[in-house]
C-alpha cells in the first residue's frame, strides 16, 4: 500500500521557482489499480520520483507499506517495483542479464532470479528475445524487458510511469492483461498516464492531477457523480478545467 501526504516540490528555473508538485495526497490500496491521470506537465512524474526516493520532497511524506520513504529509503525501494519514465537497458547485456542484474541488486540469489525470470518471461511473452543483447530491440521488447527487470524481486507495490507510452496495440493489450493479473495477485499497482481511455479502462481508482494538485479522486462512478457528467471524458475535462494535453 502506498500513501502520499501533502507532497510538495518546486524547481528553480531561470524564471523563478516552478511548483511542480503543490500538495498532493492520495492512497493506492493493495489489490487495486490506481491511476494517476493528468495532462503533460501536471506533476505526475515528479510525484512518482519522490515516491521511489529519487527526489526528496520539500514537504509532506511518502509511506510504502507503512514505511517512511525519507527515513528508510533503501527498504522502501526494496518494496517497490519501479518502471520509471527513463527505461534504458544495457545494450551489451542480454535481456536475461539485464533482468538478473536488477535481481542481484535486490539481493536475490541466482536460483531465485532464474525462477522469476522464467515466470516473467512467460507472463510477458519474452521467449523470442530473452537471450538476445538488447541493442536493436523494438520499443515493445524494451518495455517488456524493463518491466521484467522492475518486477524480478516480486514487489508488493508496482509503480509505472506512463507504461503504455509508444507501444503498439497488441503490446498495449498484453500489458493491460499483465497489470490486471498483478492486481489479482493482491498487489498495489500505481500507474500514471495522460491518456484518459487508458485510465478509464484499467483503474479501480483514479486520482486526477493538474497543476501539481489533486483536483479529483475516486472510482470512475464517483468521478462521474461528483462532476455531474454522464461521460467520463467530460468529467475529466471538468475536473482539470481544460482539455489541454489530455489526448495522445
Amino acid at each position: 500500500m502506498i500513501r502520499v501526504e501533502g507532497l510538495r516540490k518546486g524547481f528553480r528555473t531561470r524564471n523563478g521557482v516552478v511548483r511542480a508538485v503543490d500538495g498532493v495526497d492520495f492512497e493506492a490500496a493493495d489489490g487495486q489499480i490506481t491511476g494517476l491521470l493528468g495532462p503533460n506537465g501536471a506533476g505526475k512524474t515528479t510525484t512518482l520520483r519522490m515516491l521511489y526516493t529519487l527526489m526528496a520532497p520539500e514537504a509532506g511524506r511518502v509511506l510504502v507499506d507503512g514505511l517512511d520513504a525519507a527515513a528508510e529509503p533503501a527498504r522502501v525501494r526494496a518494496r517497490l517495483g519501479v518502471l520509471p519514465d527513463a527505461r534504458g537497458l544495457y545494450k551489451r547485456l542480454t535481456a536475461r542479464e539485464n533482468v538478473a542484474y536488477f535481481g542481484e541488486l535486490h539481493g536475490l540469489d541466482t536460483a531465485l532470479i532464474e525462477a522469476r525470470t522464467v515466470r516473467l518471461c512467460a507472463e510477458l511473452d519474452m521467449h523470442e528475445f530473452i537471450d538476445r543483447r538488447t541493442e536493436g530491440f523494438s520499443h515493445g521488447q524494451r518495455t517488456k524487458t524493463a518491466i521484467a527487470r522492475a518486477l524480478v524481486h516480486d514487489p508488493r507495490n508496482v509503480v509505472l510511469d506512463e507504461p503504455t507510452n509508444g507501444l503498439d496495440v497488441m503490446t498495449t493489450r498484453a500489458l493491460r492483461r499483465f497489470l490486471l493479473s498483478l492486481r489479482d495477485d493482491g498487489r498495489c499497482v500505481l500507474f500514471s498516464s495522460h491518456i484518459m481511455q487508458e485510465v478509464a479502462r484499467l483503474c479501480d481508482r483514479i486520482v486526477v492531477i493538474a497543476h501539481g494538485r489533486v483536483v479529483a479522486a475516486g472510482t470512475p462512478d464517483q468521478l462521474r457523480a461528483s462532476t455531474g457528467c454522464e461521460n467520463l471524458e467530460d468529467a475529466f475535462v471538468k475536473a482539470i478545467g481544460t482539455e489541454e494535453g489530455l489526448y495522445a
Partner: protein
Amino acid sequence: MRALWVVLRKELLDAFRDRRMVAVAFLVMPLAVPVVLAGTAALGARKQAAQFESTLELPVVGAEHAPNLVDWLEQHNLDVVAAPADPDAAVRAQRHDVILRIASSYGEDWRAGRPAGVEVIFDSSRPMASGATIARVRGLLDGYSDTVGTLRLIARGVHPAVARPLLVGTRDVATPEARFDLTQQLLPYLLLLLAFIGGMQLAIDATAGERERQSLEPLLATPASREAIISAKILATAVFALITIAVTLLAYRVSFTVLPDDISGTDFALGPGALAQLLLVILPIVLLGATVLTALAAYARSYREAQGYLPLLIFLPMVPTLVLMVAPVRTQAWMLAVPFLGQNQLILKILRAEEVGPVEWALSLGAGLALVALAWLVAARLYHREHLAASS
C-alpha cells in the same frame, strides 16, 4: 557491500563486451607506447650518430683569411662551403645549424701572435636541434687553438704544462641503470598519464553514458545505495586502467627482447619485482583518476561535456615533470606526498634500480590514498544531487 560487488562485476562485463573500448585499451595502447618510446630512442640514437660521425657541412664566412684553419676543419670530417650572404638570417631560418665567421683581420693578428677572431653563429633557442653540432664545431676550434698554442709554447722553449695549472678529470658515479636516456624520461609521464586517465572511457560511459541511455534512474530506484554504486563504478574504472597499464608495461618489456638493441635504445631491464613496484606506486593515481573522472561524469550534463574536460586532465600529470624540467631539485621527503610529483620521483627511483624505503612508500601511498578519499567524498556528494538522474 554486495551491491558494490554486483555493480563492479556488471560494469566490467559491460566494458569487456565493448569491443572498441577493449581494442583501444588492450591492443592500441600496448602497441603504441613501445613503438613511440622505441621510435624516439632509435631516432635519438641515429641523430646523435649523424651529428658526431657524419661529414658536417659548415658554411664559413671569410674562409680565405684562414686557409690553415680551414684545412684543419676539413681534415676533421667537416665540409667547408661558401656561406650565404646573410649568415645571421640563415641560422635563424634554420637553413644552417652553425655558421663560422672568420674576421678579416685574422691573418694579420695570427702573424702578430695576437688572438685571431673567429665567430660561431648559432641559435641558442634550439638546443635540441643544433646543440650537438655546435658542440662539435666548438670542440674542433678549441682543439685547433690548443694544438697551435702548445706548438707556440714549445717553439719559445716553454713547457706546455706551464699553461695548464689544473688537470681536470671526471668520474661518473652513475649506475648503469641510472644512465637512462630520453626514452625512460618519457616513461614516468606516460605511466602517470595512463594511470590518471586510462579508465576515462569506462568512467564516462558508466555514469554520463548510463544517464544518457536512461538506465541510471532505474538503477537508482533499486535498494543499492548511491555510495555503493559510485564506489563500484570507480573501482571498475581503476581495475580497467590497471589492466591496461600492466599489459602496456609488459608489451614494453617484451619489445626490448624482440627489437634489436640499436632500435630499442637503452635496455629496459626491469624484472617482475620492479614492474610490480611500478604498479603499486601508481595505484593511488589510478584510484584518484577513476574517482575524479567519475565525479566529472556525474557533474557534466552530457557525455560530450564530460569528454570536454580531457585536456585539463592530460595537463595535470604533466605539471611535476614540467616543474622538474624548469627547476631540477634534489628529491626531498615532502615531495613524495605531492600527487604526481611524488609518484614521478619514485618511478625514477625504481627505473634507476634504487631501493625505495618504507618511509617513502608510506608517504607516497598515504598521501595519495588520503587524496583519493577526499575526491571520493566530492564524487559521492555529486552522485546525491537530484538532477543527476532526473534531468529531464
